[in-house]
């Protein structure tokens, strides 16, 4: 029980950073690499997109290990949120709570109000049917797929693997991630959240 209680605390950022490197190490040791967004290409290929476009016309079985990894991460999310759940919601800074409140987004302060992983007012099927929900969830998802594949990687492939392997294209990609994230957060959010 002691171990479970210990693991159920939110992890310190330094522990989390070490554990991410451990995951990357295991994948490299097993002859693969750490990069999650390639799974999108593989899933499109399985769906038959290779018949129409060259980009998907490859042997997706080369990525079957990644799809198994992805299934594992879903299971891991289930295990962590069920058996290793924090007793309190994610504790973010007061400044962020105030900024989000100004946009009309509530931050849970008590676990009965939510875990603090996603804003429940937005991440639900009712909001999905509204313009705001379509923009945030559907357009947001579209940008993730289109952007990561154009850039050739996401946070795992570029920001962690690429930067730690001193790849200049990855540094450029991470600069792009922040340009997009900052423009969205500071310039476009006030408009989107007023929809």
């Amino acid at each position, binding site marked *: 029980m002691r171990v479970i209680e210990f693991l159920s605390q939110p992890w310190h950022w330094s522990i989390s950073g070490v554990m991410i490197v451990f995951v990357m190490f295991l994948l490299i040791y097993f002859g693969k690499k750490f990069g999650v967004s390639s799974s999108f290409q593989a899933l499109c290929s399985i769906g038959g997109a290779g018949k129409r476009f060259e980009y998907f016309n490859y042997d997706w079985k080369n990525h079957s290990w990644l799809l198994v990894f992805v299934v594992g991460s879903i299971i891991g999310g289930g295990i962590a949120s069920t058996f290793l759940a924090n007793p309190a919601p994610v504790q973010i800074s007061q400044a962020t709570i105030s900024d989000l409140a100004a946009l009309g987004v509530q931050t849970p302060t008590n676990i009965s109000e939510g875990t603090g992983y996603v804003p429940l007012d937005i991440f639900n099927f009712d909001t999905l049917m509204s313009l705001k929900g379509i923009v945030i969830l559907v357009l947001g998802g579209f940008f993730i*797929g289109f952007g990561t594949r154009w850039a050739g990687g996401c946070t795992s492939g570029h920001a962690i693997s690429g930067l730690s392997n001193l790849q200049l294209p990855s540094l450029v990609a991470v600069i792009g991630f922040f340009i997009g994230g900052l423009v969205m957060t500071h310039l476009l959010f006030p408009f989107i959240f007023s929809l």
Partner: protein
Amino acid sequence: MKLFKFLLVGILFGIVMTKSEAVSWYRIQEMFRFQSFHMYGIIGVAVVLGAMMHYLMKNGKMKNIVGDSIEFKAKPNTYIASLFGGTIFGLGWAMTGACPGPLYTLVGHGYWVILVVIASALLGTFVYGALKSKLPH
């Protein structure tokens, strides 16, 4: 089974993403508002420690599980794609508060609407694949 080990590594990854709170939409907002060190600490530790790992693997002539020497492929020098694609991903990362790994992990939390986000990401990937030859790289 050869693939089973990747299931275990994936499970570990899902747990790490959750306990690190990198799956939190709120943490990503905090990051893009520069109001906490948390996400920068995670990524910073991972990059510095990861760089040491890469150095040791290259210079220590480390072998992988089947005894082959480990080779690292350089990322292609497609700087325009990195910048433009990266910027578009950044927009989506801030909106959904999740990058691809956390998207999958959050499905495991039972936030089923995330499946719609993943479906949209697949559509985005499909459109990229369709337009690839017309886009600058």
